[in-house]
């Protein structure tokens, strides 16, 4: 059985003790906010629904992470529903996958660590009004976030080369660590991309290429995506921010604490949360202020579950924007066979990427753009089940022969793209289905904007072009429909107008002065980049602002 507490907590707070901050969710954002607020001198309690695992709990066991859901939400306890449009009846489908443990998704993510670019914050200005899309500029600019991108790189540990990607936005400091070794798939990407006149570069990764701040460098075991890192080389908040926070002596991480409701007083201020403990007992924890970092699905769900007479549409939802504008990023995926050994199963999944199509030429008539990496993110079971050409044999001698020939000789091109925000794409509470705690299940309503499908098709063609230019002996495409989603963005969007957004540019809820929301839900547009770095840069920036407000007495609590 996994152990849930790695060490005696440095501090324990009583439920009746109104801590300075309760943070809901100990993931990519929550870990950063907890560490920053605790270091600023505040008494911080982090409530995490999942367990507190240690590195010795991580195994190279595909069934444990996929079938056992060791690191992610558990469908049998937390069933979900999905529908394409509000006119449909939602059917049982587990569409959303997120990290459910201390460290959240930063534990099992691939660790691609891209900054957004300047134009990602200004897509409304660039494209104007796009029919059917709720495109808006962010209330902050790249320049506002740049210092925090840099902080994230240095505090967490990121490997890369400044200036290697000519499309990179300006930066104030180089990467703290040199890039990881180039992989065979990286060589192939460079060869193919150069042949096409593109500009490949070492991929920035939140994985240590060398020892850093007491942690080991990467040993290239290859079990990054979907797995936790036994070496602490992946810069998850579990390996970085969480231990820092605990070392202050002011931060308690409380696992197995599943928040069901945020409590408010008659003046509309939050006073604490009600959560289920490991024994499913309800506990009321008092707090002076709350920071929600529960991810782009659970954060809006919790706000909607916290509806009251005073907040009939859900807490912090006078705008009606809570749960709306759900985005995941888009993409396209293609595979290729090569003549010689690629052995993609060794080392980090990605070592090179290319951003020549970050913003498509207007001649294509498509909003947005994307980046492409070459990778191998399969393990033996998933490879045999899903990685082969879709028109190939599925069983028998020919199937076995193909799995054996292809496993060490394939590489895959993944495009990572824009996806437009739409009001009708939502996280809401399922009216019927309940989870194992009796709470309403997540209901996802989602259909891609027509522009998105054109964009995916464009990138599927670029993927195939790249793989062929790299010398593939055979290529194949995968379907454009995403079977599940992991980037959970946009559902409590940030903005200056309280009528159209949920939080202000410092992540404070427009409606509730002592409630902050800091996670992927803050995104106004999903941007072209991989999102985790921006989530964490926003968290550093928000934590600094929240600490400043608190020290100035600008966070009114219970009167």
């Amino acid at each position, binding site marked *: *059985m*996994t152990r849930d507490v790695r060490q005696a907590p440095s501090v324990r707070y009583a439920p009746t003790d109104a801590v300075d901050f309760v943070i809901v969710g100990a993931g990519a954002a929550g870990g950063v906010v907890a560490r920053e607020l605790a270091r600023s001198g505040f008494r911080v309690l982090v409530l995490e629904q999942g367990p507190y695992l240690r590195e010795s709990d991580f*195994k*190279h*066991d*595909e*069934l*444990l992470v*996929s*079938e*056992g*859901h*060791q690191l992610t939400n*558990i469908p*049998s306890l937390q069933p979900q529903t999905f529908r394409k449009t509000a006119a449909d009846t939602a059917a049982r489908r587990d569409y959303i996958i997120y990290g459910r443990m201390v460290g959240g998704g930063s534990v099992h993510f691939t660790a691609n660590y891209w900054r957004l670019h300047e134009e990602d914050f200004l897509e409304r200005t660039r494209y104007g009004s796009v029919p059917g899309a709720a495109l808006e500029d962010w209330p902050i600019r790249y320049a506002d976030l740049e210092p925090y991108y840099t902080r994230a790189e240095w505090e967490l540990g990121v490997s890369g080369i400044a200036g290697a990607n000519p499309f990179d936005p300006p930066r104030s400091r180089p990467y703290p660590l040199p890039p990881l*070794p*180039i*992989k*065979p798939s*990286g*060589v192939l990407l*460079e*060869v193919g991309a*150069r042949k096409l006149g593109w500009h490949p570069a070492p991929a920035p990764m939140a994985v240590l290429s060398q020892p850093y701040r007491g942690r080991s460098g990467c*040993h*290239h*075991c*290859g079990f990054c995506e979907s797995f936790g890192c036994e*070496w602490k080389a992946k810069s998850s908040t579990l390996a970085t921010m969480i231990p820092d926070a605990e070392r202050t002596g002011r931060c308690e991480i409380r696992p197995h604490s599943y928040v069901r409701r945020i409590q408010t007083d008659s003046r509309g201020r939050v006073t604490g949360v009600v959560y289920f403990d490991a024994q499913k007992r309800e506990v009321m924890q008092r707090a002076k202020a709350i920071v929600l970092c529960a991810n782009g699905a659970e954060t809006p769900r919790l706000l909607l579950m916290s509806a009251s007479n005073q907040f009939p549409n859900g807490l912090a939802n006078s705008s009606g924007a809570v749960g709306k504008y759900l985005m995941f990023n888009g993409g396209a995926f293609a595979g290729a066979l*090569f003549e*010689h*050994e*690629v*052995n993609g*199963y*060794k*080392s980090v999944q990605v070592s090179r990427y290319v951003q020549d199509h970050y913003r498509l030429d207007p001649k294509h008539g498509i909003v947005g753009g994307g980046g492409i990496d070459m990778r191998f993110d*399969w393990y*033996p*079971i*998933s*490879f*045999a*089940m*899903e*990685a082969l050409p*879709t028109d190939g044999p599925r*069983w*028998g*001698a020919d*199937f*076995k*022969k193909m*799995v*054996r020939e292809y*496993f*060490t000789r394939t590489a895959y091109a993944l495009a990572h793209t824009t996806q437009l925000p739409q009001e009708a794409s939502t996280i809401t509470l399922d009216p019927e289905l309940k989870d194992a705690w009796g709470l309403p299940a997540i209901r996802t309503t989602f259909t891609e904007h027509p522009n998105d499908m054109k964009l995916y098709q464009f990138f599927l063609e670029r993927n195939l072009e790249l793989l062929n230019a790299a010398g593939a002996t055979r290529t194949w495409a995968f*379907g454009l429909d995403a*079977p*599940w989603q992991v980037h959970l963005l946009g559902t409590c969007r940030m903005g200056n107008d309280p009528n159209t957004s949920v939080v202000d540019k410092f992540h404070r809820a427009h409606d509730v002065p002592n409630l902050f929301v800091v996670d992927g839900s803050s995104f106004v547009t999903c941007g072209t980049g991989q999102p985790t770095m921006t989530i964490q840069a926003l968290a550093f920036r928000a934590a600094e602002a929240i600490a400043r407000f608190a020290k100035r007495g600008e966070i009114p609590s219970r009167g």
Partner: protein
Amino acid sequence: MSDPVRSRRDFIALLGTTASTAWLATIWPPAIADARETAHAVSQGQAPRYRALTQQQAEDFGAAADRIIPRDDAPGARDVGVVFFADHLLASFAPARKPAFDQALVALNEAARTRVPTASSFASLSTSQQDETLRSIETTDAFDLLRTITISGYFSHPSHRGNRDEAGWKAIGFQDRMSWTPPFGYYDQPDVMARLMPWRRP
């Protein structure tokens, strides 16, 4: 399950388990000891003890698994313990799938008798008759479940009782290690990189 889009995690949905912490607790290291004990019993000519499967189910599933991943110069599904994997799967961490598994084997035997009316079971058919039978149901959920369990058992961590001696991994050239050093394959060898990437600084 009839969704034509074969997602990279569809196999999880197919197994559709209610994973329990009890299962997690069984994995390390008792499962390894148990697998060794079972392998030892078989090597001594003793009948294997199944917890979820009947002997007939073990034979029918094993026969199907051996057609899905047949023996070539690498072991076949049954050689590496896929039947024990299935038994363990259905007895411990996926008991909710037992009815679907039972139904899949009923469907398999019905298809067998459609091909060969006198057949007593799928396992009793010749391998070419077995292949014909499987081909006749290869687009069904029943077949997908048998295929999913076979592939999972052939390639999963050996602690789950399949992939004995990592034979499934060896067959495809995968090694489970905690550490690798470059070069990882052909294309990142220094001399190959020098040839393919003349722009690269040493």
